[in-house]
């Protein structure tokens, strides 16, 4: 194998750092998508429970760990944010369908981000191998000089 010079080692370290930063961004995006997915799942559960419960009483969190029992006046009229900062009124079942579609979209995005992250990680592994071999060469050269 060709001897790696100090400059090449530094460049590889920069690559590692850069890829690491990119990977962090993608991990953040994955977390955001997962949070969105979980939120939508919870919303679906609440919407379905509201319809099936006779009295439509829900536990409403008001912050600071405090909750109150609240009666939903119109459990079949849901105000739904559909995107582009637009809110529309939909029947409960349609709102559930909409949320299910959103979940599918988020899962598709998660898959894409995860694939990109995998590619980045395999590139980082490659760079890491080259770095390790560079360090070993540098350390062997140092021992020879001694």
């Amino acid at each position: 194998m060709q001897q790696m010079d100090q400059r090449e080692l530094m460049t590889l370290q920069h690559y590692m750092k850069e890829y690491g930063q990119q990977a962090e961004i993608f991990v953040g995006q994955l977390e955001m998508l997962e949070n969105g997915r979980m939120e939508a799942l919870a919303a679906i559960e609440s919407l379905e429970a509201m319809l099936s419960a006779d009295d439509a009483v829900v536990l409403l969190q008001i912050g600071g760990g405090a909750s109150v029992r609240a009666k939903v006046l119109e459990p079949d009229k849901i105000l739904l944010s559909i995107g582009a900062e637009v809110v529309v009124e939909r029947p409960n079942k349609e709102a559930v369908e909409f949320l299910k579609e959103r979940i599918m979209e988020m899962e598709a995005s998660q898959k894409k981000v995860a694939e990109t992250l995998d590619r980045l990680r395999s590139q980082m592994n490659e760079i890491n191998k080259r770095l390790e071999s560079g360090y070993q060469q540098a350390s062997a050269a140092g021992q020879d000089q001694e």
Partner: protein
Amino acid sequence: MFGGLKEKLQAVRDRLGSSIQASAAPQATAAAETVAGTAPKKTISPAGPTFSEKVKVLITDRELIVSEKDISDALSELEMTLLTSDVALPVTDAIIAHVRANLIGKHRKIGQSVDALVVGALKSALLEVLGTGFSLVEFIKAHDRPVKILFTGVNGTGKTTTVAKIGAYLKKQGFSVVIGAGDTYRAGATEQISVHAERIGIKIIQHQEGADPSAVLFDSVQYAVSHKLDVVLADTAGRFHTKSNLMNQLEKIRRVMKPDLVVYVDEAVAGNDAVIRAAEFDRTVGADAIVLTKADMDSRGGAAISIAHTIGKPLMFLGTGQRYEDIIPFEPAKVVDELLGSDS
């Protein structure tokens, strides 16, 4: 890229087509009755052509006329499709109005493809909101050298990588380029851009971390002038328009380097947020063109569809991946063809 929007638009296209097709059958039946001398006495459609007009056109010209009633459900579906894809409300309204104006009252020869009519209306509506695009190569050719391009935007959207990608693109187009490392604020930014510059073989001008970015970019312009280079790409630190000290710094940079083009960079995945931020940035520091990064991750396409129409500035490039060549000039006609398929 924009796979979700593409799928939904194709569904709306089919829906519009079948609505118009379905409306043709009753017209033909009524026409037969009219010929037999049983003409209906009153009109049935308040919007667009009257029923008797439609029948008359059908008999004399062998044509069908599209009315509001024929397509109103499909237009509602189109509206929902655009809004759920994060296309801004004014842009959605503009698209719907354009499609409506294009289709209602339209005479269609019997036997003429409905699909062609629908696709034509959708395409011209999208092209209207997407604008004309922006050719950076033509811009550079039309200006005195060096052409100074300043990149601005919020943090973490891929501005520095975009500068490198555009550098590689311009180098490939035969231009000589220098990069000014004007992001002296973020730790490691100077290192990051210098690694990029080394990889793509472009000269970089940089000072120490924390240095005055105006000075770095002034030196970059001087270097380009003395070496007769074609383009200066000026990277800057990411900033929010609400940070007055950083915005003042950007104002100073503008005064010192006198850019020919100010490019706002944001990520396509931010959807409507990117549109709102771009509008704010344009209002406070100005922007001449937009680059949207991470378009390959964006299945909705809302920002790409909305941004040019909303802030009135053209979309210049889309970032579509990790590699330097993963940047494509934004050409509205190509994007519309990609979304709706080529002409049927």
